[in-house]
């Protein structure tokens, strides 16, 4: 299953490294990354593959949220389908 991880927050050293390590710990493969600074905020989206991840989705979501909050970042994970539905014909 593919999902989209989004990260928004004040720019700081090591955001990508931290998020990628957290994902790697759960066997989540990163397929694509797109990142920019929007209105002064670090803004990133990653397409990830959850095929090898054993953790339930709910737990993953909570874990990323908690990690984000520990670094004053907003991190969320959502299945890709919702974005496909809204933006692709």
């Amino acid at each position, binding site marked *: 299953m593919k999902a989209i991880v989004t990260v*928004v927050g004040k720019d700081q050293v090591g955001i990508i490294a931290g998020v990628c390590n957290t994902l790697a710990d759960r066997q989540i493969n990163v397929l694509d990354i797109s990142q920019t600074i929007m209105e002064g905020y670090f803004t990133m989206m990653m397409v990830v593959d959850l095929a090898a991840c054993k953790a339930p989705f709910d737990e993953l979501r909570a874990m990323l949220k908690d990690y984000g909050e520990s670094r004053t970042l907003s991190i969320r994970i*959502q*299945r890709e389908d919702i974005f496909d539905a*809204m933006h692709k014909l």
Partner: protein
Amino acid sequence: MLNLQNIFDTIDMIDKQHLDIRTITMGISLLDCVSEDPKRCCEKIYDKICRRAEKLVQTGRDIESEFGIPIVNKRISVTPVALVAGSCDTEDYVPFALTLDRAGKTCGVDFIGGYSALVQKGFHKGDELLLRAIPQALAQTDLVCSSVNVGSTKAGINMDAVARMGRIIKETAHLTRDADGLGCAKLVVFCNAVEDNPFMAGAFHGVGEADSVINVGVSGPGVVYHALQKCKGAPFDVVAETIKKTAFQITRMGQMVAAEASRRLDTPFGIVDLSLAPTPAIGDSVARILEEMGLAVCGTHGTTAALALLNDAVKKGGIMASGHVGGLSGAFIPVSEDEGMIAAAQCGTLTIDKLEAMTCVCSVGLDMIAVPGDTTAETISAIIADEAAVGMVNSKTTAVRIIPVEGKTVGDMVEMGGLLGSAPLMPVHTASSAAFIARGGRIPAPLQSLKN
């Protein structure tokens, strides 16, 4: 390929513009629960609902978590109880409501609809007994919603039913007076009721439906409002196009959730209801969309035209985004559930008369309107008759959900709580309609040609 902007547009819609799935409603047929023994009938109803909807709430929560889209309510609709209970050897239909309430609570849903009767042309025994039980049923339950269809374009209007509904609404208000007549917020009087409506209080599972079905109602006035802020002063062609594009996106999301819920629950997908359903939250108002089009206050001259455009564009945009569209599709204008409508009613610009005109061009009707407690049953019936006539002649669904609040008068506020919001009591005309309502009988079905 999705880009960063797409992703964050969606997240903004959910986070800042109140985009949500208003409801996943599971329709369940109770036609196979019929029994002469009322106790046995209630047992069968309870068992069937609990069996079918066992995983509804958990599935809703799972989808919410995985897709990151709030699903505000999970609901159940059932076959109109008057049809199911009609063969039971009992005159007391309150136990059927208690059974629905208990089943709803066991499943953990927010509402259960279908304590209903279809009496557009006349009453059978089950209809008579159900109508008699409605006030007690609503007073003794928490989740049960009731609806009565009193007219249709093909049958005309059953004015005996209209007269009775005025009295039933008054009695319901009286029995739930400690909660400011809350029971009336769960009671809808329809003309041209639809069989696949996922929205409460009027949801029921029609007899032409499958054994069980998943219907989804979307929301998103905040998203439309936000989109229109980007085309200030532009001609209406641009306004309509912007609403259509937004409605398309909202509905695609609804369709995806409906398909997912249907798959996980192994229940056929019914319809997506293309609705703009407001909530009392700031920024989630249909009235504010109309004001964004250039009206100082919702309810002033131009409101009906603005609403007509909005309603039509929502349907045009949404219809291509979903495999099957149905329910009440369109913009809702419930006064207490819409922050902008509340403000417009409070300042006196939005009146019941204007709302009635607005219902000619939008979804449903006079919805969640609080009126003084001394409003007579006949006046309420006459309001219902007017609204049913709008629906009957225009071949559309119309409805009345009106709350006479005992001990309060024009200008006072009532708090309904949650999605039901709060409402200022609105004035009604005081000249009597009693002799009109006392006539009874039926208003014949209207001519379908010579349209003028």
